[in-house]
């Protein structure tokens, strides 16, 4: 390797490090919510940064964060596809969006009901139960704090889709939330009935 190319490499590495490493926590967070285990998330994030480094030269002017998250998402989807042989995310999501109108979601919720706080583990459980396309928009918006435009970039869909998917996702989340509260309240009764 010549001295010139080595210093070019070092310069490129420095630019990549400055641009990409500050977003590591967010990338890892998304990986943890998309994949089942911490070890899988580790592998996926490593692979994401490898791919990002490889394509860094072709990367111009966009925001780094959505770009990285989009790569991570692709890595995760490839991993799903490899494991299950199926992960038709787009189709699933569109179908689900058509399935029921938003404003009829909560069949039993009383208007006076107030969401109570759940601990982090419970909330993680709610999120894990969401179908993947809905889980990812909630994580990107509410946990990673991306704007709608950024989310649109990550998932490669128009902002309108982000909005409807997010509304639907939060609807499901709220339902799970309220259901857990009802069960907490009348846990005893439920047990009686199920016997």
């Amino acid at each position: 390797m010549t001295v010139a190319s080595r210093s070019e490499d070092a310069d490129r590495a420095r630019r990549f490090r400055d641009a990409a490493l500050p977003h590591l926590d967010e990338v890892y967070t998304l990986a943890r919510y998309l994949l089942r285990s911490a070890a899988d998330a580790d592998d996926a994030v490593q692979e994401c940064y490898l791919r990002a480094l490889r394509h860094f030269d072709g990367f111009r002017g966009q925001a780094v964060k959505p770009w990285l998250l989009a790569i991570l998402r692709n890595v995760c989807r490839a991993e799903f596809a490899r494991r299950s042989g199926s992960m038709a995310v787009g189709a699933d999501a569109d179908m689900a969006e058509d399935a029921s109108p938003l404003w009829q979601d909560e069949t039993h919720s009383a208007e006076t009901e107030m969401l109570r706080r759940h601990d982090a583990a419970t909330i993680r459980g709610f999120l894990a139960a969401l179908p993947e396309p809905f889980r990812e928009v909630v994580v990107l918006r509410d946990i990673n704090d991306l704007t709608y435009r950024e989310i649109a970039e990550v998932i490669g869909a128009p902002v309108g889709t982000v909005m409807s998917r997010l509304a639907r996702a939060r609807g499901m989340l709220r339902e799970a939330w309220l259901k857990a509260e009802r069960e907490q309240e009348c846990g005893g009764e439920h047990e009686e009935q199920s016997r």
Partner: protein
Amino acid sequence: MTCEEAGILLHALIDGELDAGHAREVERHVATCPRCAAQLRDYRAMRQALSAPALRHPAPASLRAGIEAMLPAPLARGTASRRGVLKGFAMGGVMGGALSAALAASLVLYLGRGEEDRHILGDLVSAHLRSLQGDRLTDVQSTDQHTVKPWFNGRLDVAPPVVDLTAQGFSLIGGRLDYLDGRPVAAIVYKRRAHVINLFVAPADPQASGRAAIETRQGFNIWRGAVSHLSLWAVSDINAEELQEFGDKLEAAVKSGS
């Protein structure tokens, strides 16, 4: 505004993505619709709960180190840190006996590892990183040891051992020609799950210490071993135990095969 429209737009309202005109419209609707008002209140509470730091997953230090390590190292890092040590040592004389003794000890430790040693470890990691970055992980891609082994014929003055360790959990991916310390060497590539293991094979240096041990450099584990007249190094980001296992199985397989 209908409940259907409000059902989507109230999220944009919460998220601060709505322009003032639409925001007023949503608020006007919510003021007259208890159902949407309840939703808005719940979604606000939910958003609040979801912003809890406990729901974020900070990257583990090991992952950060691993990613740092796969980036090409900045120029002349070695010389810089060495200068740092020497400077500290010189200052020790000024700062007093105890401290300078400690510094002297660390300097001895620092210099204790041979220059050659550090040089080869750095080369190994660089070669490993190069193999991961380009499209040149393998020159010959095959899971068949009888394809990979003959490929090296005539390319090197040694015949590297190529053994299939798939049954032991390390699948053979292929091989390539690489360079260590300016000399051509064989690199045999294995995978453990998604992790690449590069096994470098070079003629044994009679000067080299023969100890088989795992060392860590830039977040990568490096196993070194030897069979008959060959030096072996395996470099990977898998954990030390697994790499040791790889080394043990490799040596066992090579010895039983030859």
